[in-house]
């Protein structure tokens, strides 16, 4: 178990800046998920921690010791790669035990530990096989075993589940979670899949454009997104967003007039400036009868999810998604959207940052 301190880290590849000033403190034993779109620098950040890339400027410390100049093998990190990166010519047992062999651990001890790890991961029957004779899920388990056997201070996962099918992904996700609970090793998990991120993370880090947008628990990030980017990126279906202007009285006037009703009282913090108002699909209630304050809309189509459905509505000419448990209204039906103004999120259109709707600090 180790804490990790990432301080003002920049990374440039030639002229391209990939990371511009990343600060992240990770407490020992935490499971941190870094989430972001492709190209946001999340994998690069992970590789900087691993020592596979060199830091342009800034510092990374593991357990208080700056590791900038250390080789990967000296950092005590183990890594699981997206495409498994198993040694094709070695058996499963040799793959898992290779780090121990390199470290000079004796054969008997090595075999004992290989068997122990294989037991944990359900790989015991496959120890003599070559990686090419394994399924994708088994291969990724071998890759995890290879990381586990070293009893590292830090686990690094670089999108390890991306190449697996949906069912296996869910299964391995649970296994990773269980393993972390048992071993308690500080882990950094990089992914672009928000479901994976939300379900796995103790701490969720959202990155965009080489910067950290928000750090928090998954529920905090979901409920109070720190920026327009986070609001739009997290949540499926995504948050409904409308841009408009806040007038001197603090009332929100959306560019699409019908959307003004989402947050009539935006507050005076943004008075006279452009703002973005957002509302999560599950916060809107679809009514089949008019009600006080409800916004009239028509049904465009419905997406069925089994446990619920998402109704896409035409609200003043722009599509509004509403998630509901109730049965879906027919296409073309007139419905009314009931929203709680307190559920609305408000962002400064210029900076993209969150602003508390009542005014004052977010």
């Amino acid at each position, binding site marked *: 178990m180790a804490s990790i301190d990432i301080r003002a880290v920049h990374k440039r590849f030639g002229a391209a800046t990939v990371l511009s000033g990343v600060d992240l403190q990770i407490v020992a034993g935490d499971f941190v998920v870094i989430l972001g779109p492709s190209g946001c620098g999340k994998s690069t950040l992970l590789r900087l921690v*691993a*020592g*596979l890339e060199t830091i342009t400027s800034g510092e990374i410390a593991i357990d208080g010791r700056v590791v900038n100049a250390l*080789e*990967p*093998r000296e950092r005590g*990190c*183990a*890594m699981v*790669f*997206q*495409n*498994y*990166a*198993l*040694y*094709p*010519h070695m058996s499963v047992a040799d793959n898992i035990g*290779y*780090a121990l062999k*390199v*470290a000079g651990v004796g054969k008997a001890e090595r075999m004992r530990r290989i068997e122990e790890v294989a037991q944990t991961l359900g790989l015991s029957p496959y120890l003599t096989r070559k990686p*090419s004779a394994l399924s994708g899920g088994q291969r990724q388990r071998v890759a995890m075993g*290879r*990381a586990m056997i*070293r009893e590292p201070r830090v686990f690094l996962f670089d999108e390890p589940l991306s190449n697996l099918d949906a069912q296996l992904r869910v299964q391995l996700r649970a296994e990773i979670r269980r393993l972390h609970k048992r071993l308690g090793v500080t882990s950094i998990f990089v992914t672009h899949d928000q479901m994976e991120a939300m379900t796995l993370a103790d701490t969720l880090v959202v990155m965009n454009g080489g910067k950290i947008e928000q750090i928090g628990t998954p529920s905090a990030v979901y409920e109070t997104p720190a920026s327009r980017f986070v609001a739009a990126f997290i949540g499926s279906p995504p948050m409904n967003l409308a841009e408009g202007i806040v007038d001197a009285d603090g009332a929100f006037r959306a560019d699409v007039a019908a959307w003004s009703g989402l947050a009539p009282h935006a507050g005076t913090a943004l008075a006279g400036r452009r703002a973005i108002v957002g509302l999560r699909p599950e916060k809107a209630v679809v009514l089949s009868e008019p009600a006080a304050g409800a916004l009239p809309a028509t049904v465009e189509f419905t997406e069925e999810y089994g446990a619920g459905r998402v109704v896409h509505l035409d609200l003043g000419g722009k599509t509004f998604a509403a998630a509901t448990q109730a049965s879906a209204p027919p296409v073309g039906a007139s419905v009314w959207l009931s929203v709680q103004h307190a559920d609305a999120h408000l962002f400064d259109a210029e900076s993209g940052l969150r602003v508390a709707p009542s005014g004052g600090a977010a």
Partner: protein
Amino acid sequence: MDKSGLVERTPILDVVTQTLLFLALAVSMGPFLIVAIAASQNLHDVNQAPMAFWPGQDFVANVQAAWTRADLGVKLLNSLIFALGVAVGKVALASLSAFSIVFFSYRGRRVFFWLTFMTLMLPLEVRIVPTYAVAANVLSPYQSLLEVSGIAALLHRLLGVTVDLHYGLLDSYGGLILPLIATATGTFLYRQFFLTLPDELVEAAKMDGARPLRFFFEILLPLSRSNMAALFTIMFVWGWNDYLWPLLVTTQAAHRTAIVGLRELVPGLNGIPEWNIAMAGTLVVMAPPLLLVILTQRWFERGLVATEK
């Protein structure tokens, strides 16, 4: 891999291609057959015109005669040492230089690669004079450097010492083998293979704590086994069959190779036309590379066409 699904039904074309194949086989096997038949005939039969196309009964006697006359025992051993040395040396050097070119970044690495690559276009015959000069005196490049730069003259004037660096390799196994072990083909073959390996493999090894040499020996080399077999086979056959270089570098019988030795079996202008014995010797000399190719064929093909994943 079975790609027969791509083949369409074309009965006439099938017959034509099969016929062509058999014709080609006959053309390529024909000379070999003549050699084998001639090697089994006696002096009288082999000199009939036209030559009789049935085997005689003197094969063993002819081989024995060829063996003693050309001292094939020693020469085959020399050939074996020469071809093995060249093949092993080339495989080792090529894999190491490709390892350096692909996995390390340093200044001028591209230049080095392209310089190496360009020598592909220069066969041994083209650079045989300078190569011979180096074999005759390994230190000659340094000697010329000293002379051209004027240091030799300076030393002579100041100290009265005449610089004469000399270390010759002629008439030795070292001289036969060492000047030939650099190989652009091999380096290129290895480079192309190394480039197909995913970066993550290197990174996984790094994370597992393997240093570069360990990675080279425990991961890269086992993965390139079939490449190695292919390169080894090609280079062994090439070395075995090379005539010009061993002829130049060796002057004493003790270091002559079998191919060069075959000349001793070729009848002279006014000698007895013992072509049966010459052919028997030829058969013996061509056997080892043939055997090697047959034995390594499976690996050999894999190394040339596919990469193991």
